[in-house]
């Protein structure tokens, strides 16, 4: 009932808000960024030991706050379930949704939302207990499957099992936490979700060594930040904040050497990125140092990746598809020119 109430309130809020001034201006005036993240997913959005939110998705919020407000900590984190996320963004409860959300055609075109880029290339996989003796997803006929409600995962699962002539029983929960608990309690035989989430959820389990991720990846899940449609100025800020992090990695600009780079670099693209030449900041309606602050306070894409989900984290996910384009991956930024 509480959920219902929340959604209805959000629905009413959609009615109430009339087209307002630009989100960029509002955020500056407000002094903080309202950013929607997951309710708790290790590596992407979780509350750390220091009681602060951290993760790859949280870093996206912090980067935008650093660019727009000058301070990466000026973020108001709003944890959202998969079910709540789009309504929250549509109704203005958050101004940026950075919540491992898959970019799909219908979401992009029918919800009044725009995807500003991809901060993680993912794919759907399966997590099972090792002692189940299953080595391939093709052996899962008749299994009970725990999933999160309102995700692309639900649809992919149905398609995959049908294509392989297998039956399954979906057990649908609201949050990733409930999914993990249901799985550990033996309510289902496996969890299906984006592979990154499976690795993340496994770290939360009582005995992570008991479980394994099956080799099959059954879908494309490009995850990225989402904004409301029709505010191009704000869209540009989000999109280029993400590109700034990727470009910084490509040119070897890190949070540690950014000061030295800003004064010494000879590379024209780095100069334009850090605002020592050109007028990229002005075009984005930001100041010249916007990208400098992102790199200084949050780090480049590679740093953020390694710290949150990569080798520097308990998840130990390799870069794979998320390596830069010149290192065999898909992460690619248009030129800063």
């Amino acid at each position, binding site marked *: 009932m509480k959920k219902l109430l929340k*959604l209805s309130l959000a629905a009413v809020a959609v009615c109430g808000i009339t087209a307002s001034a630009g989100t960029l201006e509002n955020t500056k005036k407000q002094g903080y960024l309202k950013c929607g993240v997951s309710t708790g997913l290790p590596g992407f959005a979780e509350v750390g030991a220091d009681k602060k939110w951290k993760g790859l998705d949280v870093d996206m919020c912090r980067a935008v706050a650093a660019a727009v407000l000058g301070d990466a900590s000026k973020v108001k984190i709003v944890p959202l379930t998969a*079910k709540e996320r789009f309504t929250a963004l549509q109704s203005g409860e958050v101004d940026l949704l950075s919540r491992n959300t898959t970019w799909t055609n219908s979401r992009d075109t029918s919800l009044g939302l725009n995807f500003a880029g991809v901060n993680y290339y993912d794919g759907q996989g399966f997590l099972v207990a090792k002692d189940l003796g299953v080595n391939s997803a093709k052996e899962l*006929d008749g299994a009970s499957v725990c999933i999160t409600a309102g995700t692309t995962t639900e649809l992919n699962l149905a*398609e995959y099992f049908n294509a392989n002539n297998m039956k399954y029983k*979906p*057990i649908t929960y609201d949050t990733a936490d409930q999914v993990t608990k249901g799985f550990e309690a033996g*309510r289902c035989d496996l969890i299906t979700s984006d592979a990154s989430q499976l690795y993340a959820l496994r770290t939360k389990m009582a005995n992570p060594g008991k479980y394994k991720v099956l080799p099959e990846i059954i879908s494309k899940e490009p995850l990225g930040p989402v904004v409301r449609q029709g505010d191009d100025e704000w869209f540009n800020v989000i999109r280029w904040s993400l590109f700034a992090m990727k470009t910084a990695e490509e040119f070897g600009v890190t949070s540690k050497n950014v000061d030295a780079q800003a004064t010494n670099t000879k590379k024209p693209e780095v100069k334009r990125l850090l605002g020592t030449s050109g007028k990229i900041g002005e075009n984005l309606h930001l100041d010249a140092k916007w990208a400098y602050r992102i790199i200084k306070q949050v780090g480049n894409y590679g740093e953020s990746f390694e710290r949150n989900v990569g080798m520097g984290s308990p998840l130990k996910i390799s870069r794979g598809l998320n390596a830069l384009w010149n290192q065999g991956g898909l992460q690619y930024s248009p030129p800063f020119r």
Partner: protein
Amino acid sequence: MNLLNNQKFRGIFFQLLTVIGLVAFLWYITTNMFHNIEQRGITTGFDFFGQIAGFGISESPIPYSDQTSTYFDAFKVGIINTLIVSGVGIFFASILGVIIGVARLSKNYIVSKLSLGYIEFFRNIPILLQILFWYNVVLAALPKPRQSIQLASDMFLNNRGLFVPKPIMEAGFTFVIIAFVLAIFVSIFLVKWANKRFEETGKESFLLPWIVLIIVGLPLGVYFLSGSPLHFDYPALKGFNFRGGMSYSPEFLALTFALSIYTATYIAEAIRSGIEAIPKGQKEAAASLGLSSYQSLKLVILPQAIRIAIPPIINQYLNLTKNSSLATAIGYPELVTVFAGTCLNQTGQAIEIILVTMLVYLTISLTISFVLNIINKKMEIKGR
């Protein structure tokens, strides 16, 4: 003649003004809403009902396929599951409630204090917590499919649910059903005849064994005569879990259990207050007529107490139905989970879906209250 000084006219005028104001306000917020939605490029309308849903639902009493069924089918599954949970919950809550309510007034100290403890305990814990508690108890206490508890020869209980044989009726089974219905009519006739005889002659007839014989014997006889036209589909352990038979999921068990024992406390209190509202004189009068305490409860106290208790019990039935929406916390696929949950997120049409969901609950609640109000009217003491 000044119209505004006319009291009748003034009354109508201001009422009309209020209605116009209200309509204008509603019209304004609705058009404003649609304007905003359109401006943001959010799809509106109810076209999604006809589209393929494409996601699976764990429990569906009607045929549902994740590849061919539409959102409308998913919507129907949600409503039916809501009705099932509410119906089963109301049934058990009523039985439990009446028992506890009567036990609460028992002269036996232990029985009455136990009922009191039950009521005070379960009534004062939020229902959502109870649902989560029972769900976790069910999941934690029950074994995995391979170590299932065998309740009877073909009944199994594990953390995937309760598995029982599924009866499959063949053509001849219709005769058995007809025989059963016939037996009930005969029994009703017998009871009426006995009552009439009792009123006319004062002779009591001991009918119970006869009625049992007719209701059990007649269909059973027909069953064997028509060549046992019923067989069972037994659950069997195959692959990951039991297949075949009928199954009740842990979500369903936990939800109906929690709803029943929670609502039963309120029904018990309604019954108790109904009984206590009957003047002491009624009981004393019954006793002085020579009725035993069982007879006085059955013939004098309960018929009057039920009349007083019905309106609050209607309220509890409505509450139970609405509380069933808390199923979303444990993932039982009723209306809120399936429709206001998954469908909403897959289509992104929050306003339409929330509106329809609210309308469904409104309709269910009004229907229950309408039916029970008719019963209430019938049960009322007719002034003579």
